[in-house]
């Protein structure tokens, strides 16, 4: 063990890791060059490639690229470029948790495949069903599943998130490390396993944004295809894979974004030094990374055509990619459950003295309501996914009716989680809206208790409505009626939120900095999502709208209004807290004024073509529908949204280096996290504060918290 750790810290390891990643970069460039070459020459120009190009130039180029990158990686890893900034970045980068994790994942995946395939070969089993050809070797589906599972363990071992726990088994002491590892720069913390909740929150945040970019790119690719009738540049199979991946990748991004806000904000807001279980917190984040990797890898091994819902029996017949998607989704459940436990326990037991439930900042209510759902519902979808994995890989018959299975069982298990999870996405977002409104209106939050309890109300009712996703699925009619009634009741607590927000705005002395603009945008967009819902809740109208683009418009408005807009508001609002600097206000406003009208056009456009007869999840549509103009408009709006998000990222990256230092409390907020320096100190509050008043008493001279007297931090630890 000790020698292994020594090896991982050695320069030889760095060199090998560098070589490996260099080769991977080279291979990627070589393959994509090859792909682009084929695409442009053969598919677009219709010309045959000259033999010398295919037989000599391209392979030679590929070899040079792979070998060259491997050499550069090796030399960089060995420290040849230590003098340059890029060299330092590559040197330290090759030793980050991500590099070690991915290396572990690749090695363990291959080991797992090898192990299972050897057993199968010994037993004389031949590969039937889906197979994948890896470097000329045919790999069976069970081999792939086992490899993927072991690969995730490899990632966790490699990244180091399990190290402390494993060392405990040997009886070793492993005190929590604070700050960057010895001899490594400060930024190294953010690319490595770290237990501080603020570091983990930021890790969640940038991963969420990266995954959001991937999911957005998929959407842009198939939206361009959908702008015109007829297939232009994708095949049906590619289109199906892209929209399926878009769905699940965006869900992963949203869950990561929820994790970012909850992890960063909850301990700060309740006056805790960290989360209740810091190592478990790191585990929640790091187990999410290989889960996203598996989903993306699924696109490379055949893709899948089931959408993100993966209904049986289609999922049982889909290409091999669906198996990696199911596994990635399943692994993500561990992240959800573990992080929910942390949030619940932290909020329950680590609140500052005097902070009763109704004196917490309102965001914490959203976070805890969401965590209660994650903690109790995720297991059901885990079961559904695992049953699908097992049915495909080893033939256990749960869902396929030809063997006595029940296809509707999958839908029930799936939606029992997947409906409530919508509230996991939106409740923290709605919490952000409620949190920011009083600050920018300089007024108390209207009906604090009603808003707080409406979050729990939504979470509760959310558990009783899942079968409205199945109104056309062939359920009994009495069940359709029952779920119609429960579904309609979701409108009541949601309405309470809207009315309370408007009442908070009323007579508020509003200012319109970027976070406030995004809050107002969120209310308008969530309103579109809200009012387009009840029409789907009553069965007779749903029979027309079900599986149409109306639904697409409805849930995109819900997700954008309930999560994306509030998340962006939160990013702008807490940006000075996280970085200590102010973002560029002009670029923030530009982002808002591009994205909000863009989203209105997209959402109303989708609803409009849906009610007219456009189906969901189709690669191509009938030109006789006469909706080409709307389709072009939706695509253009989608592109505008994409560009505006790039502007935000540019703003954040550039402002972190060039903008002036932010003042301590730029928004004149009463919330505790703004009463300490930015970025927040390692343990948040030197001395715990005491809560003596209500959080949103703007308009009168009243204390919310009383800070303790600062004392020198004890040496050590």
């Amino acid at each position, binding site marked *: 063990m000790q020698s292994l750790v020594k090896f991982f810290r050695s320069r030889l390891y760095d060199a090998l890791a560098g070589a490996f990643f260099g080769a991977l970069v080279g291979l990627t460039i070589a393959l994509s060059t090859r792909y682009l070459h084929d695409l442009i020459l053969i598919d677009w120009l219709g010309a045959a490639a000259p033999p010398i190009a295919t037989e000599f130039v391209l392979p030679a180029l590929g070899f040079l690229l792979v070998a060259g990158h491997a050499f550069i990686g090796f030399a960089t890893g060995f420290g040849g470029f230590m003098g340059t900034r890029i060299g330092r970045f590559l040197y330290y980068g090759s030793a980050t948790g991500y590099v070690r994790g991915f290396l572990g994942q690749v090695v363990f995946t291959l080991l797992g495949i090898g192990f299972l395939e050897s057993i199968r070969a010994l037993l004389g089993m031949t590969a039937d069903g889906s197979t994948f050809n890896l470097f000329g070797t045919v790999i069976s589906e069970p081999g792939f599943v086992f490899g993927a599972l072991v690969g995730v363990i490899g990632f966790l071992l490699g990244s180091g998130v399990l190290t402390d726990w494993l060392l405990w088994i040997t009886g070793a002491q492993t005190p929590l490390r604070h700050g960057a590892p010895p001899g490594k720069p400060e930024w190294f913390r953010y690319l490595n396993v770290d237990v501080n909740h603020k570091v983990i929150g930021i890790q969640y945040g940038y991963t969420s944004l990266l995954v959001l970019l991937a999911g957005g790119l998929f959407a842009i690719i198939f939206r361009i295809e959908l702008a015109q009738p007829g297939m232009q540049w994708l095949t049906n199979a590619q289109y199906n894979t892209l929209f399926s991946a878009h769905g699940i990748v965006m869900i992963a991004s949203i869950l990561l974004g929820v994790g970012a806000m909850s992890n960063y904000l909850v301990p700060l807001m309740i006056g805790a030094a960290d989360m209740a279980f810091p190592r478990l917190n790191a585990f929640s984040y790091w187990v999410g990374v290989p889960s996203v990797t598996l989903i993306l890898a699924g696109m490379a091994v055949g893709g899948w055509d089931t959408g993100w819902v993966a209904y049986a*029996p289609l999922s049982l017949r889909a290409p091999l990619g669906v198996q990696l998607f199911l596994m990635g989704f399943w692994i993500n459940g561990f992240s959800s459950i573990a992080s929910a436990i942390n949030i619940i326990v932290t909020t329950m037991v680590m609140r500052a003295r005097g902070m009763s439930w109704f004196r917490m900042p309102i965001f914490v209510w959203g976070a805890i309501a969401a965590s209660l759902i994650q903690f109790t519902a995720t297991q059901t979808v885990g079961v559904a996914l695992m049953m699908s994995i097992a049915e495909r890989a080893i033939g256990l018959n749960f869902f396929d009716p030809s063997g006595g299975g029940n296809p509707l069982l999958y839908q029930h298990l799936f939606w029992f989680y997947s409906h409530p999870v919508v509230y996991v996405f939106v409740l923290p977002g709605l919490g952000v809206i409620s949190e920011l409104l009083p600050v920018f209106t300089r007024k108390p939050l209207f009906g604090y208790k009603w808003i707080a309890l409406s979050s729990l109300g939504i979470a509760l009712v959310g558990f009783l409505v899942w079968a409205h996703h199945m109104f*056309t699925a062939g359920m009994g009619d009495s069940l359709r009626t029952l779920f119609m009634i429960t579904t*309609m009741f979701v409108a009541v607590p949601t309405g309470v939120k809207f009315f309370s927000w408007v009442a908070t705005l009323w007579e508020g002395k*509003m200012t319109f900095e970027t976070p406030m603009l995004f809050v107002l945008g969120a209310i308008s967009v969530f309103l*579109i999502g809200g009012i387009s819902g009840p029409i789907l809740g009553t069965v007779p109208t749903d029979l*027309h709208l079900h599986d149409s683009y109306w639904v697409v418009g409805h849930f995109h408005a819900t997700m954008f209004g309930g999560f994306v807009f509030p998340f962006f508001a939160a990013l702008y609002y807490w940006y000075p807290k996280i970085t200590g600097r102010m973002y560029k206000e002009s670029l923030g406003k530009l982002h808002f004024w591009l994205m909000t009208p863009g989203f209105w056009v997209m959402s109303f456009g989708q609803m409009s073509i849906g009610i007219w*007869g456009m*189906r969901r999840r189709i690669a191509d549509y009938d030109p006789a529908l006469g909706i080409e103009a709307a389709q072009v408009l939706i695509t253009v709006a989608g592109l505008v949204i994409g560009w505006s998000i790039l502007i935000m990222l540019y703003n954040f990256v550039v402002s972190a280096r060039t903008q002036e230092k932010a003042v301590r409390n730029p928004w004149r907020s009463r919330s505790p996290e703004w009463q300490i320096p930015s970025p927040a100190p390692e343990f948040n509050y030197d001395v715990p504060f005491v809560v003596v008043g209500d959080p949103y008493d703007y308009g009168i001279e009243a204390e919310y918290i009383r800070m303790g007297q600062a004392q020198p931090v004890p040496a050590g630890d």
Partner: protein
Amino acid sequence: MQKYKHFIIVTVLVLLTTVVLKYVVFGPMFRLPPAASAESAPIDALFEGHFWVISFLFALIMVLMLYAIVVFRRKSGDETDGPHVHGNTTLEIVWTIVPVFVVIGFAVWGMVALGQLLQEKDDEMVVVVTGKQWEWSFAYPEQGVKAAQLVLPVNQPILLEMYSPDVLHSFWVPEFRVKQDLVPGRPTFLRITPTEIGNYKLLCAEICGMEHANMVADVRVVDNATFLAWMEERSQRIDYAALTPVERGALWYGPEGDGGFGCNSCHSLDGSVIVGPSWLGLYGSTRVFDNGTTAVADDEYIRNSIFYPGQQVVQGFVNQMPNNYEELFAAQEADILLNDGLEIDIVADLIAFIRSLNE
């Protein structure tokens, strides 16, 4: 009075905006397709009710929000906070209780309308609908007729009895409004009374794999005389003996509703790729398989590929073909032998048809 001024203005604005939204904005934006079934009436009435609520709620929140933004926003130089208002229990109770009654009202309305849709009619005609990847076929058991398009007599109550042999599909004709999934392993049912003569499209509304977008069938609603004539025409048994092998091959290649085996849903005749390889120029060509071996497409190869589709998979394709054609062909051959006294070989017909494409 100053306080009531705001509320009077806002009330007038909300009501005005509601009407404008209903008729000028959402009216043109949310157009329903023309109604062509008796089921449309209760559904469209409910739609109309919903559109009023949508218009009102959108107007209510947006007007209040924009009014507050314009009227109450901080004036320059004013550094004071807003009024210290914590909430109002009466208001909270009102805006909780009123929506409760509204949603109960709509749920009851929905129940009544759903009851009308499910109502069994006296003289229902049964049509058996089969949806499989990626083709629709229809059978009229009372008349003993099969077809690849859905032809319905106007004003005749229809009971659709729907089956799927493979994955979920969903029956949706937008002009008929109602929708129902097809679930493998069990029948599902849908009631429709077409009321307008015309041509419509049946769309598969549940993702069912690669060619989901193209799983479309023609729907014709015709007058009773036309329907009876069409039935008469379709109920003639195909005279297999009068057909040449190539003609029979074309028949087997075609959709199930026309008496074929639906090869056409995956294999084109014009060189384009749907799911499997095109049949154009197939016969006699050299096939390259995914394991690198090759073979010439002769009679034996084609027979083998139909009966055992997973054995030799052409490079660049994924095998998605059912492997039960040997049984299906044998059953059909036995049926023809029994009824027509004619001995045929369906694979030989298909080979003849494929060869004819080379000419």
